[in-house]
């Protein structure tokens, strides 16, 4: 059936991209499970990780993105600080343009000791509708997505952060309080799917 042009145009508000993408899981819904291989060769299962931690922070990161790289120190520090409280930080590199050996070298150079997973074919990025780096998802022990968005609002200067959104979310989660801002946004580098 041929639809009138006006209807087609009204319905045409869509995202064009070089990839098919699922809807992002809503806050409060089960986070899609995945199993990936870490850059040290170990298998990582989200379902397993959530069972043994108070929260799992999944961070889509990159080796070449200035926005992601601006957060290397913050990611390392947050992983260490919240690791003491039973929170596991995990990095995922879904960029087709950044091979595993580059991800290994990058982690070594920046002292990123948390597990970093390579996401071949950006399947996990698609599952989460992750758009850019850095982009963060927080999952609670029952496997529910509790926070999605940025680490904070100031990529340029960590000392001038006024909205430490990831910290706020983790603090609320660890103290069984509602997360005031469960979805946040910031500019970042598109995940390179092609």
């Amino acid at each position: 059936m041929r639809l009138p042009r006006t209807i087609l145009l009204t319905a045409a508000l869509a995202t064009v991209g070089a990839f098919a993408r699922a809807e992002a899981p809503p806050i409060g819904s089960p986070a899609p499970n995945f199993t990936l291989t870490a850059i040290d060769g170990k298998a990582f299962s989200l379902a397993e990780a959530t069972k043994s931690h108070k929260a799992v922070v999944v961070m889509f990161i990159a080796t070449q993105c200035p926005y992601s790289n601006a957060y290397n120190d913050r990611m390392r520090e947050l992983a260490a600080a919240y690791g003491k409280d039973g929170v596991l930080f995990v990095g995922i590199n879904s960029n087709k343009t950044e091979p595993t050996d580059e991800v290994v070298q990058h982690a070594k150079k920046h002292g990123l000791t948390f597990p970093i997973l390579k996401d071949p074919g950006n399947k996990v990025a698609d599952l989460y509708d992750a758009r850019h780096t850095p982009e963060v998802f927080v999952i609670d022990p029952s496997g529910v997505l509790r926070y999605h968005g940025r680490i904070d609002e100031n990529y340029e200067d960590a000392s001038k952060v006024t909205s430490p959104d990831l910290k706020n979310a983790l603090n609320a989660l660890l103290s069984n309080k509602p997360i005031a801002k469960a979805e946040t946004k910031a500019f970042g580098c598109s995940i390179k799917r092609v």
Partner: protein
Amino acid sequence: MSEVPSAHTPREATSWPRLGRRAHGRRATLEGGIGILLAAALGAATSRLAGDLNAAGLTQRLAQERGRVVLLNFWATWCEPCREEFPSLSRLQRSYENRGLRVLGVSTDLPSQLSAVEKFLEAQQPAFPNYRKAAGGDDQDFIDSVDKSWGGELPFSVLYARDGRKAMVLSGKQSYRDLEREVRKLLNSSS
């Protein structure tokens, strides 16, 4: 062209602000108060940027293009795919300007990256005006004001129909062919 309302058409893209074009040489030859004022005006306009836009300013700027199809593109100098996509935008503007296309660029670079922005524009010589996202405020508010579905990834483009209606958002780097296809659809539509 009858389909392009000249009343709302700012300067032609090909003569878009180039006020910085070697103003300094002239400045030395000018004397007196008028000369100082003129020199100050020229000196203040050495930027290739058409100005700063916050969310409200962007809405107003888009309204000036009513009657045209608008391709609004957000980019940054640190964004490699943005730089790769940029020449396609100029090509589109040149190819479809007469049919009523207006490309508008908005740099999301921080104020500290202004020199990189100017250098990029100097090298690119874009055929369309480029603005800078105004400093201050939370980026999330700006991102949401453009489109709720935008996660902040760059590059990011929005296509508006001639009546100002948002017709499509385009996430990530697009090929010239893909952009052209969508632009042509809107140029060919009646509204």
